[in-house]
């Protein structure tokens, strides 16, 4: 090939490239204005919950109806997905069969106003109920999730709650909390006992039974046991466990700081360590210790009172209350006790810090004029926001494990009761109605 031919070829190629670059591409979006859509007013998706198919003789019509109702109640409690009323269904009211194949009724559901669909099957295998389910995105006609849960027939409502929580996770990436539980202190039996209830306030039951005074419940990370403070006969507080799993119940860390009071214990997020409060020469100080009682370390060193430790979700920091500057305020320190710094400045009295599950906020109680309110502050102490403000007292906040809600104790109706505040919708729900005072709530972790 001659040089001139090569040159001509290169020239032709260049021209072709230029023409190709300038040629209009059909459907080009680059030269059109970007249509920016900011969030609208809608905050929760409508989801159709079908009556689950029967997988055998044990899946009676009554049970399947109860399961559907439990799923819908749990969706309403989570307030992320709203159940679509059955009257609006354009698709089938009952799951015909749970299959892996494509569906052909998505248009029916979108026309019904549903963004999603929950379908499933209920079956009795031996003495266990098994719920198999799938969550669909109706607009994309795409199965987002399929799964199953098993439990005894007594756990039917709980099975429904777990399906609803999973559906919330399929749409948002963060599971719902209807199937979680809340531990709290109640005097409804005439004694101060640790009670446990479902997160919607139902199924409250005692987790301890004795005449001793109990306080400060806190969950083990696996939800199988609760750590609490119990006053011994000599009036000295000690740490105890009550268990429903393999964890051995009873007093713990009795060999640590023998004879000294130990209270307000909280497990680290990995469950290996505890932060607890003990008194040294009359001043309350915070200690850290391995759960087997080894590696005891004093974290605070001042003559002030230092109490109420709360771990950050990554276990690297601890929020606590100290009156080292004269009045109780919220502080944050590294989990080895280094770098303590004050983060609350809103009032002359701040207490009960609780770190949010995403680590971005610390909820705490603030004395404002004559009452206590619930505020949140970022861990650097730069932004403080009042969350629950009322003319009566609101105290002891605790976050739901999805970070969407805060449970707290309030005497707004004269007696101390527990309430849940939903941060997304701004709604407040009362959880306890039984007689007696109900205080010190601790929201449990997600079920395993």
């Amino acid at each position, binding site marked *: 090939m001659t040089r001139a031919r090569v040159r001509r070829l290169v020239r032709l190629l260049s021209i072709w490239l230029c023409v190709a670059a300038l040629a209009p591409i059909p459907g080009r979006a680059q030269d*059109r204005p970007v249509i920016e859509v900011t969030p609208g007013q809608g905050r929760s998706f409508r989801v159709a919950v079908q009556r689950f198919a029967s997988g055998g003789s044990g899946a009676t019509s009554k049970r399947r109806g109860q399961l559907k109702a439990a799923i819908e109640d749990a969706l309403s409690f989570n307030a992320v997905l709203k159940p679509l009323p059955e009257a609006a269904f354009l698709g089938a009211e009952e799951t015909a069969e749970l299959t892996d194949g494509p569906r052909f009724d998505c248009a029916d559901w979108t026309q019904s106003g549903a963004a999603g669909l929950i379908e499933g099957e209920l079956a009795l295998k031996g003495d266990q109920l098994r719920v198999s389910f799938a969550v669909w995105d109706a607009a994309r006609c795409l199965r987002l999730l399929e799964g199953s849960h098993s439990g005894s027939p007594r756990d039917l409502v709980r099975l429904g709650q777990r399906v609803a929580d999973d559906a919330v996770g399929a749409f948002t990436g963060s599971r719902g909390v209807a199937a979680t539980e809340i531990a709290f202190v109640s005097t409804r039996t005439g004694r101060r006992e640790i009670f446990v209830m479902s997160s919607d306030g139902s199924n409250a039951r005692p*987790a301890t039974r004795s005449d001793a005074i109990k306080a400060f419940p806190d969950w083990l990370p696996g939800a199988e046991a*609760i750590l609490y403070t119990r006053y011994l006969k000599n009036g000295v507080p000690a740490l105890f466990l009550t268990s429903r799993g393999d964890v051995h*119940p009873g007093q713990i860390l009795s060999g640590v700081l023998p004879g000294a009071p130990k209270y307000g214990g909280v497990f680290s997020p990995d469950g290996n360590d505890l932060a607890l409060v003990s008194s040294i020469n009359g001043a309350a100080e915070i200690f850290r210790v391995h759960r087997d009682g080894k590696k005891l370390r004093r974290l605070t060193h001042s003559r002030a009172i230092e109490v109420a430790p709360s771990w950050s979700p990554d276990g690297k920091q601890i929020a606590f209350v100290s009156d080292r500057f004269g009045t109780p305020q919220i502080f944050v320190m590294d989990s080895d006790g280094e770098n303590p710094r004050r983060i609350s400045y809103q009032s002359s009295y701040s207490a009960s810090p609780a770190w949010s599950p995403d680590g971005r906020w610390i909820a705490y109680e603030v004395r404002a004029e004559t009452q206590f309110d619930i505020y949140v502050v970022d861990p650097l102490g730069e932004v403080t926001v009042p969350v*629950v403000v009322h003319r009566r007292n609101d105290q002891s906040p605790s976050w739901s494990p999805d970070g969407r809600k805060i449970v707290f104790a309030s005497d707004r109706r004269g007696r101390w009761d527990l309430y849940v505040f939903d941060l997304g919708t701004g709604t407040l729900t009362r959880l306890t109605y039984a007689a007696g005072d109900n205080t010190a709530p601790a929201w449990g972790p997600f079920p395993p």
Partner: protein
Amino acid sequence: MGAEWSDSWEADFAAARRRRFLALLSASFAFHLLVMAALVLVPKSSRPALPPVISIDLVSLPAPPAAARARPAPPPRPVVPKKILLPKKPPALREKPRKVKPVLRKPRPKEMEYGDAMAQLRSELGETAPETAPREVEQPGPSASEAEPAAAGGSLVSKEVLAWVIDTRRHVRSKYITPPEFLNRSLETHLRVVLAASGEVIGVPEVVRSSGDPFWDDNAVRAILSASPLPAPPEAGAWPFSFPSQDRR
């Protein structure tokens, strides 16, 4: 020794509760029996007839104005008891007759800059004005393009396109669900949406720039599909959409 916590305790408590309930039920039944017997045996007194039912129509109050949109304040809204504010001066009983002036409308230019168009759109949608400097002032750096990505370069849009953008935005927003947990995060998804001449969305919108959170990306795609058909576009083909989780203005 701490008490073992077992849900089997529930059975004992439930039995006790059942016994208590039966006892209360029996007592209530006996009490009602006594009351019924007394009603039968005691002679009836002549009571005046009840007056006829009077129905009263209550004047319904006007709906409160929609709450102002919160700035991207970190978390939640506080629960504060509402205060009722009374006007300082009572309103005048009679309004002065207004002089009606003839309004001379300037003819609109056929094309306007996208920034102006979006400002008009926001005012129509009741959104706040951008916190950027007036356009006469040269702003260094990204403020203009941050506030309005499409305005970078001052691209011109026709009146027809602008009207469609306004309609489309309003239409999609009406179908657009945003779970609250996304609002406090800084996420933005860019989609390429292929539209038929009728406004029907063709296929599944393509995520051309992900927000980094697949759930937020899915949310944007879901919003477009739920809103299909969109208002008929000036031209069929691909149109760029962006879904920021926060109103940046």
